[in-house]
């Protein structure tokens, strides 16, 4: 197995918090509480030793009392910000109740948050987690910026932003702009990213005249690390398919489960254990009208049966991809009769939140499909729009809080194309 420690984990499990307060009881209380939350805690009882401690052993966060004799919290904060080592370390100020001016001054001087005394220990934990959650990605990017040789200059930041935009552009290019046009089948897709780069992805891989590989996946997390893993999966998948089709050994195409197993083993070997993906990979046979697929721990796709008007979930056939060596996958086949619709989606759709803790869910998605598919006239592009509108209504927002992706495949009814183009 690989070592579960590498720079691509944003979260480090050994985070250190420096507590600076002249009240020894408060220092002890915070130390006990934060240690039980799993942090390493360093302490100092005045501003000068607080600074010394911070520079000798740069912490991940500083809890800093404002009212201290000699050097007060504002002076300490100022000196922390002026020193390159501690410039970017997040600071939460501890202020006495009602001192609004302190808060404003503190935030002006570059504090990340403040906590009013007397405080609830749970509030301290919550604020510490929230600030660390915001600053972890910055900590991750800082070494990159240093490596660029521009330190923390504005020019450096601009350059980095440029690189991120370039990364997002590369990623967008990797996703097919248009679903392929196939005989008898109509395919549409939807991708909404919650950040500039996305962890959700889909791809279409031409295998032969009548076979097309279709993948829909969701890399855990979001942002650059998720996007990098997505690019890796997408490239590996295309290479594996190409290689197998050229060798012509796996007739008529490589088994989806075997492909997914190789991607699993690659990710287990080469990435952090907490970077994993869930994905569906299948081959659409346009002549036999079958979808032969495997599912690596992904939400079960919906299959609308035109003849009965009912919806089934495609069965599970394997574990999430990239976390466990022993993951095994099986291949299954589903027949898509004329009028049938297959809908693969990511959990950004089913876990869109409406009222607090109420999710959109598979049932609503299935109901939306059943309602509109009845009669056989629903086009895949129209369904993507319907889902988007339904989600906006349900969550009260058009801005998704997680990436959302949909791949909708319909076996056209005979003469449907004729009717559609003549009307």
């Amino acid at each position, binding site marked *: *197995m690989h070592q*579960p420690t590498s720079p691509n984990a944003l*979260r480090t*499990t050994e985070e250190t918090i420096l507590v600076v307060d002249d009240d020894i009881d408060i220092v002890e209380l915070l130390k006990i509480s934060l240690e039980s*939350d*799993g*942090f390493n805690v360093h302490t100092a009882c005045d501003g000068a030793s607080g600074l010394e401690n911070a520079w000798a052993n740069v912490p991940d966060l500083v809890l800093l009392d404002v009212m201290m004799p000699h050097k007060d919290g504002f002076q300490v904060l100022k000196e922390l910000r002026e020193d390159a080592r501690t410039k970017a370390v997040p600071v939460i100020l501890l202020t006495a109740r009602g001192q609004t001016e302190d808060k404003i001054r503190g935030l002006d001087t570059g504090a990340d948050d403040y906590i009013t005394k007397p405080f609830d220990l*749970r509030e301290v*934990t919550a604020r510490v*987690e*929230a600030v*660390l*959650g915001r600053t972890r990605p910055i900590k991750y990017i800082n070494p990159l910026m240093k490596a660029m040789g521009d330190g923390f200059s504005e020019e450096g930041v601009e350059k980095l932003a440029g690189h991120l935009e370039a990364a997002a552009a590369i990623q967008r290019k990797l996703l097919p702009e248009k679903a392929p046009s196939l005989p008898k089948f109509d395919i549409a897709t939807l991708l909404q990213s919650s950040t500039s780069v996305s962890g959700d992805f889909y791809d279409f891989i031409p295998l032969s005249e009548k076979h097309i590989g279709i993948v829909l996946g969701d890399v*855990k*997390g979001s942002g650059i690390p998720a996007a990098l893993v997505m690019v890796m999966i997408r490239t590996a998948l295309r290479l594996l398919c190409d290689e197998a089709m050229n060798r012509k050994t796996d007739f008529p195409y490589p088994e989806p489960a075997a492909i997914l197993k190789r991607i699993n083993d690659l990710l287990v070997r080469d990435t952090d*254990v*907490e*970077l*994993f993906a*869930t994905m569906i990979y299948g081959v659409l046979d346009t002549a036999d009208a079958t979808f032969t697929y495997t599912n690596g*721990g*992904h*939400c*079960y796709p919906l299959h609308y049966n035109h003849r009965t008007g009912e919806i089934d979930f495609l069965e*599970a056939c*394997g*574990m*999430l991809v990239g*976390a*466990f060596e*022993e*993951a095994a996958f099986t291949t299954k086949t589903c027949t898509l009769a004329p009028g049938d619709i297959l809908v693969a989606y990511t*959990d950004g759709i089913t*876990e869109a939140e409406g009222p607090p*803790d109420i999710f959109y869910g598979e049932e609503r998605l299935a109901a939306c499909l059943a309602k509109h598919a009845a009669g056989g006239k629903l086009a895949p592009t129209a369904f993507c729009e319907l889902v988007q509108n339904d989600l906006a209504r349900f969550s009260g927002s058009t801005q998704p809080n997680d990436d959302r992706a949909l791949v909708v495949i319909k076996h056209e009814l005979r003469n449907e194309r004729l009717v559609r183009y003549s009307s």
Partner: protein
Amino acid sequence: MNFDTTTREQNVTVLHIEGKIIGNTADTFQRAMERQLKEGNRNLVVALMDVPLIDSSALGAIILTVQSFRESGGKLVLLNPQRAVRDILEVTHLATVLEIYDTEESALSAFS
């Protein structure tokens, strides 16, 4: 999210979690589990009966920590996950590699 621990026979520790494990909370969750390993408690039962909801960050924390326990020759098992959590463990097939028990008695007997 809140948690507390109790030590049972055979050096098994039960970590009882209460509340949703989503977003940044997953970090606290992960540290709570890893702290047990650091303190030398290599047999851990994570009690999930009072966890209504988890997300992929929490799954990541579970996967990572299960591996750490395995690598150090210990074991981490899950106790009584509720419907929403159980659904996620089943869809992702994690239920096939993780040990999941319905009662504390059966969870404890996994270490004997």
